[in-house]
């Protein structure tokens, strides 16, 4: 039962352009969503989060949008930089301290 889905396993974007990573979820009880970034041979690191009472949260080059009616969230990175090349995981949480992760999207920024 995959409650969080990232249907694009990989994405390539030109440096300087916008990267858009998508995530869909099925569990209506999620009230908090997080994005993590993972480099090879390292653990995931927290990037940005959004509460379900908001539809947008911005932190520098990173913006997360939440569409509750569509059960969809997206991460926008603009402008994309080579250091953004990594695997990005979306995760949902409903306050039980148990994050449910998607399978990740590998983002490659082309110089």
């Amino acid at each position, binding site marked *: 039962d995959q409650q969080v889905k990232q249907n694009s396993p990989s994405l390539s974007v030109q440096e300087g352009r916008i990267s858009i990573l998508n995530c869909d979820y099925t569990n209506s009880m999620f009230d*908090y969503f*997080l994005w*993590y970034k993972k480099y090879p*041979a*390292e*653990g*995931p*690191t*927290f990037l940005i*989060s959004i509460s379900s009472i908001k539809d947008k949260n911005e932190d520098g080059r990173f913006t997360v949008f939440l569409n509750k009616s569509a059960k969809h969230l997206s991460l926008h990175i603009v402008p994309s930089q080579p250091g953004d090349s990594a695997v990005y*995981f979306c995760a949902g*949480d409903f*306050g*039980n*301290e*148990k*994050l449910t*992760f998607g*399978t*990740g999207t590998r983002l490659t920024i082309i110089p």
Partner: protein
Amino acid sequence: DTAVSQTPKYLVTQMGNDKSIKCEQNLGHDTMYWYKQDSKKFLKIMFSYNNKELIINETVPNRFSPKSPDKAHLNLHINSLELGDSAVYFCASSQVRGEGADEKLFFGSGTQLSVL
């Protein structure tokens, strides 16, 4: 001064052996976790401990036994290793979500376990 450190980074062993993975966090967090990332890249929670007390046990086989000697340490012992146990195991910690706190996990760098 790594925040969440786990050892070893790589572990290659034979089926049937018993092995342990150690984890320590110096963030002062109350809660620690073990996550498993399988070959399909699913990152799934196995256990969580809050202040040395088991909070979450996600129907993991009894061969997996976590041990938390204090709130800064959460070790994972695996008995009678099987081929299907091959995966990357991540330790993580967080401050319990409360007013003003983010539910973000701080992960270790992972232990690649290969069972031959």
